[in-house]
């Protein structure tokens, strides 16, 4: 799988700004709670200036790993280095790391300004220096009008801005975000996601965030670590994780996918064929894969990579015939659920713009789904 993968940075010019490759190093971190392994021997490196997402389902240990970075949990084993300094034995209040909590954790008895000034005061800065920095932060998060308010006098989105300003005020070497959008409603979410990324990138702070929302990770992060039961399954740019999943778990966790099992029939240097009991025709992959003849593999292909039409494609492979069982309308596109004669189901996306231009497809139509020889990936684990 040597396909070219574009850089996942949100801002193309930023790729050069990204500094040291292992600014944050997590080495064999393990965290057990009474014998229950929440984080299992995890090793990760995060680059300077990068937004790095820990993505995974509920209970996979992503928050625990983040709390180890913040110093709120003591790892059972392993080391954490930030900018070549060991963090393990530093208490949270001595780490050059700040965190934005999921609940924001704004101090209810302090005004917005006092909240933002809190960390600076602990460092013993001069009064006017603190006031200037607070103003600066308020400007960055566009909350200058709200400095004198108490947290409960703010809406959810405003509270989030204050929490962000507070965690950035001390210019930490590392910013931690725990489910940053968790407390916002859906509409506000997509707006804040972009805004947060803009602010973080503008300040150039290195950031590790935790989320269970794949879309959020895809939108915000430069790189994503996919976690499952305490382990990292794959690390890569959003593109890589989406286009080149390395495991069935990764393929299924991110986006939707069509997956069929089969055996490698021909294993050549420049192509591979797979025979699946579910498909009448062979699956043909246009490049070599690391496998052997007879190996059990899964073939995964995204719905938007499938073509759908009434006429049989001319190619001898990578196609299947079925009937349209269901059509789900999503505005910009529709998803066609196609059922093959043997019951196997395929999902195919179809942009709705295209739909009006081409033949119209409807329920119970006999159709062919097909895909290109580089459309899918072969998974061995």
């Amino acid at each position, binding site marked *: 799988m040597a396909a070219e993968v574009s850089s996942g940075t949100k801002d193309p010019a930023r790729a050069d700004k990204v500094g040291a490759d292992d600014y944050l190093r997590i080495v064999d971190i393990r965290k057990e709670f009474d014998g229950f392994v929440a984080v299992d021997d995890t090793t990760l490196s995060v680059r300077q200036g990068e937004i790095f997402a820990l993505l995974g389902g509920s209970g996979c240990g992503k928050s625990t790993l983040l709390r180890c970075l913040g110093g*709120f949990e003591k790892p059972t084993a392993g080391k954490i280095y930030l900018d070549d300094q060991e963090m393990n034995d530093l208490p*949270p*209040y001595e780490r050059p790391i700040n*965190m934005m*909590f999921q609940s924001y954790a704004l*101090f209810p008895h302090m005004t917005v300004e006092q909240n933002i000034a*809190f960390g600076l005061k602990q460092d013993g800065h001069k009064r006017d220096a603190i006031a200037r920095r607070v103003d600066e932060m308020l400007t960055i998060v566009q909350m200058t009008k709200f400095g004198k308010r108490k947290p409960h*006098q703010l809406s959810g*989105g405003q509270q989030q801005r204050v929490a962000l300003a507070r965690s950035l005020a*001390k210019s930490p070497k590392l910013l931690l975000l725990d489910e940053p959008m968790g407390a916002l409603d859906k509409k506000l979410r997509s707006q804040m996601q972009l805004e947060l990324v803009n602010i973080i990138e503008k300040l150039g702070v290195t950031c590790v965030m935790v989320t269970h929302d794949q879309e959020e990770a895809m939108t915000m992060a430069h790189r994503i670590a996919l976690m499952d039961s305490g382990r990292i399954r794959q690390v890569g740019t959003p593109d890589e994780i989406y286009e080149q999943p390395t495991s069935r778990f990764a393929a299924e966790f991110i986006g939707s996918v069509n997956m069929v099992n089969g055996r490698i029939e021909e294993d050549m240097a420049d192509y591979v064929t797979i025979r699946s009991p579910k498909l009448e025709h062979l699956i043909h992959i246009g490049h070599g894969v690391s496998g052997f003849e007879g190996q059990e593999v899964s073939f995964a292909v995204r719905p938007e990579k499938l073509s759908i039409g009434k006429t049989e494609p001319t190619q001898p492979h990578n196609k299947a015939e079925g009937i349209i069982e269901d059509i789900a309308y999503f505005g910009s596109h529709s998803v066609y659920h196609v059922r093959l004669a043997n019951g196997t189901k395929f999902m195919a996306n179809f942009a709705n713009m295209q739909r009006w231009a081409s033949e119209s497809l409807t329920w119970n139509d006999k159709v062919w789904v097909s895909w290109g020889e580089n459309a899918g990936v072969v998974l061995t684990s």
Partner: protein
Amino acid sequence: MSGRTQRWTSWAILGLGFAFLYVPVLILMVYSFNESRLATVWSGFSFKWYGELLRDKQMLSAAWISIKIAFLTASAAVVLGTMAALVMTRMGKFPGKTLFGALITAPLVMPEVIIGLSILLMFVSLGQMVGLAPKGIASIWIAHVTFTLAFVTVVVSSRLAELDKSLEEAAMDLGANRIKVFFLITLPIIAPALVSGWLLAFTLSLDDVVISSFVAGPNSTTLPMKVFSSVRLGLSPKINALATLMILVVAVAAFIGWWIMHRDEKRRKLDMQMAAKEK
């Protein structure tokens, strides 16, 4: 039964319940303004007994002692009770935690006679062994702290338990060590609970008879003890007047406690509505 009669019945039951609770108190208050020396015969309205009360030196000094003890008790119980509550809610797991929790709150259900007796025995043996037993006001103070401590601990730890832990973590994250976190974040937020714990301890100490009677010395007669002994010599309307004043004090204290707890909440709700509307 129609909805109307049903509502009528529930009002009647409510009324009866309140009557059961408060009619005796009301009668007492009314009779404190009675002219007559006989506690049960109404002969006219007067403040006479309040005047008598203020001229009763013994009664006044007992009241002063009681207030002093209640003040000291409440203050000490709040400090110790908050410490105990912190241990219970913030120290994580440690061996014997359940036992410790049970022991702290045991005085809530222990008969006062037993508490009084055991503290008396402790003072006596202390006196015999090291010749240094607290006397008078100090002994009552110590005894009162022991039993009010349990109440304060319960009030404060329930507040601490519902306090969002991430507030303290956030403060620590921003560079405050544990001591600073406590004084800058935890304490201001739980302050209303401390105030109501203090008022609770104050009123409990103010009206305790049993425990005080066990440990009091000759010069430390508290107000309830004085009342109790004078009632045994016959009912005097003066006691009614005193009781009315005490009810007033306790009611005011209770009201202040309630008001402090609810003022913040109410204001917060209003502000939250405003913030939501504005958006």
